[in-house]
């Protein structure tokens, strides 16, 4: 299938299909439909128009959300035609199939002809070809055909491209071409699109997408896939050593990071700190930094001392969870106040000693020695709240993704060729004329960018005609 032709310098070839039209009616009609440019244009336009729907109607939302917006009948109708997940609906996929089919059929129809044109170029400048060319020039020179043929051959090779020489009765034809690859740009582009589709299908069939929330210091290897309908156990586990957020001086987040380890057969086989835009990959499975949050409630850090100052270590108090201290009793965090009576952050702990009534005590973060005033056998000081975080990881396996990139590469390369490379051809015919003169006809054509080729053609001819006349002076034959 031809795509972008700039200014056409050749007549549009009659499609093979038109010739076949008088044959079997239905099959040929169907084929003609599948390879038509009209189908291509309409498929593109219909795909564009229908795609708009899915951007206006939010996709894959919970049912309740739609019910709030739409009347019952509208909801039922839209649900019926999959408008809430339209890019995966049967009719949209059918449109995409039609698109791919159109591309494929066009290629089947036209590629062989393009290959034939390139492999068996028209080497002879006959009258029919001459009339079809946009650019021709004629002149006469004194001398013999073989001598001029040699001279022009050398000149063409130097100024344009090395020509092929064909001799017919009484005439010698030179044919030179450049940019043959231009004939295949469109096919590469179209093949690229089909390959991208294949890659997408591979990814959908053999890959999966999932999401993991892993609290700090724990590991996970179990995944829910396909919207929780299926489960999958990874052959290894991922441990979140720590998640953290870094900020700019202004306080806006500058970095979300997770220190991850891959654990396989009880051993750490890989460790990497991932950030947004810098994922971890192991055995074809990718882990992307995607979210975070607090895992469970915050814990209060409390340190213990004897009145003489000897440290007895730290306690981590979860809300209302009593923690025992040997030979003392139990202590639990009851309440946290960001600013207790204007004295800053403080924690209220409940101390229970065997055989004594429980007592509630406020300990202030800013005044670590204040608890001495209680004259107890232990002094508590509050080190602040720390919250345990979890990291949210997007997990993906997509064995089709490299196929997609291959398709993209082909698509881009094909497009560059289609737009910026032109197949330029120049013919020169030399034949015996009257009075010992040689009659010369030159013709040229290009499949794109005619104005540029006109300049090339003129420049090549000027160059060619200049050189041999100099030769002629040297050997007056």
């Amino acid at each position, binding site marked *: 299938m*031809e795509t972008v032709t700039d*200014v*056409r310098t050749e007549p549009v070839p009659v499609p093979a299909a038109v010739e076949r039209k008088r044959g079997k009616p239905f099959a040929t009609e169907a084929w003609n439909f599948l390879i038509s*440019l009209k189908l291509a244009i309409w498929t*593109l336009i219909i795909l*564009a128009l229908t795609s708009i729907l899915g951007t206006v109607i939010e996709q894959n939302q919970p049912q309740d959300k739609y019910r709030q917006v739409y009347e019952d009948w509208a909801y039922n109708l839209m649900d019926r035609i999959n408008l809430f997940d339209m890019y995966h609906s049967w009719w949209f996929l059918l449109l995409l199939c039609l698109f791919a089919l159109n591309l494929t059929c066009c290629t089947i129809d036209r590629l062989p002809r393009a290959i034939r044109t390139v492999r068996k170029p028209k080497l002879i400048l006959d009258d029919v070809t001459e009339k079809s060319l946009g650019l021709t020039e004629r002149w006469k020179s004194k001398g013999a055909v073989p001598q001029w043929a040699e001279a022009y051959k050398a000149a063409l090779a130097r100024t344009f491209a090395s020509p092929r020489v064909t001799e017919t009765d009484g005439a010698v034809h030179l044919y030179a071409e450049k940019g043959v690859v231009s004939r295949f740009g469109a096919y590469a582009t179209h093949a690229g699109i089909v390959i991208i589709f294949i890659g997408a299908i591979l990814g959908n069939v053999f890959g999966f997408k999932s999401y993991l929330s892993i609290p700090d210091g724990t590991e996970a290897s179990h995944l829910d896939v396909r919207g929780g309908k299926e489960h999958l156990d990874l052959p290894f586990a991922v441990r979140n050593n720590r998640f953290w957020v870094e900020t700019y001086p202004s306080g806006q987040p500058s970095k979300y990071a997770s220190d991850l380890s891959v654990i396989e057969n009880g051993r750490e086989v890989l460790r990497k700190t991932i950030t947004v835009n810098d994922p971890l990959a192991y055995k074809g499975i990718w882990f992307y930094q995607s979210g975070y949050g607090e895992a469970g409630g915050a814990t209060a850090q409390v340190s213990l001392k004897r009145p003489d100052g000897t440290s007895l270590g730290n306690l981590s108090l979860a809300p209302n969870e009593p923690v025992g201290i040997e030979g003392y009793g139990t202590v639990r965090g009851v309440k946290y106040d960001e600013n207790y009576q204007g004295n800053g952050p403080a924690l209220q702990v409940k101390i229970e000693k065997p055989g004594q009534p429980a007592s509630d005590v406020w300990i202030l973060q800013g005044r670590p020695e204040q608890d001495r005033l209680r004259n107890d056998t232990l002094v508590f000081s509050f080190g602040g709240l720390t919250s345990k975080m979890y990291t949210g990881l997007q997990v993906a396996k997509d064995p089709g993704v490299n196929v997609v990139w291959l398709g993209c590469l082909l698509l881009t390369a094909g497009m560059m060729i289609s737009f910026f490379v032109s197949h330029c051809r120049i013919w020169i015919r030399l034949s015996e004329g009257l009075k010992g003169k040689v009659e010369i006809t030159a013709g040229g054509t290009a499949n794109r960018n005619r104005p540029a080729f006109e300049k090339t053609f003129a420049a090549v001819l000027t160059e060619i005609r200049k050189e041999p006349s100099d030769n002629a002076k040297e050997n007056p034959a």
Partner: protein
Amino acid sequence: MNTLNVQLFDLTTFLFGTATGSYIAALYGKKEFLARIGTWICAAAAIVSTAAIGIRWIESYRMGIGRIPVTNLYESLVFFAWSINLFYLFVERKYGSRSFGAFVVPIAFFTMVFAFTIESGIQPLVPALQSYWLHAHVITCFAGYAAFAVSAGVAVMYLLKERRGGDKVTGGVLALFPDTKVLDDLVYRAIAWGFPLLTAGIITGAAWANFAWGTYWSWDPKETWSLIVWLVYAAFLHARITRGWHGRRAAVLSIAGFAATIFCYLGVNLVLSGLHSYGG
């Protein structure tokens, strides 16, 4: 008090406004020298806006958050206008006609006027945007958009001229336009630059998404609209080689393509919700 770069962008806005006025006055008054003034003003605007982009870039480094200045709505608008202006100056030089100015430069002007009305501060990059893909993605997309802007401006000229009988028009503003054949060719050529750039923009966007989220395509509204734009221009390119579709219909498709481009660029962020909210 605005920083130097914003003051220079404000000056650019003023210059585009003046150039627009000159080009339109040149057409109606049939005074070539006015159009020539327009060209000089556009050249000045190119220098001023280039300097402003450079200064903004340097300022971001001074603030300790150095990054390329194409990361929020304001920056993308000025970059868009900058690209349109450069692309326009190139076309004007190559085709030797200043009549395009009245149809293309206003697009750059209105873009800058819109930029003038919105928040212009330099914000630090959110983690999602910290990627080398950002450069390739944004630059290819906006260079493509600029090419489409030029194409649409010329398509309007084509339709105006064609409606009044094409090249047979004598006298009046339309006679100053290049031949319809030249206009038609230019509509195509601008798209021939824009389409590969848009394709590269979509592909780099997909590659980036795959690297950031593990999905190269998720039918997010922005992605979908970029595909819609791509489809419209693909239809244009095929229309141009089909009998009965070139000329007028192709020009209409070029304008439709640019309308879709503008919606993809601005409409999606202002009207729809999705992953590409500018500046955060």
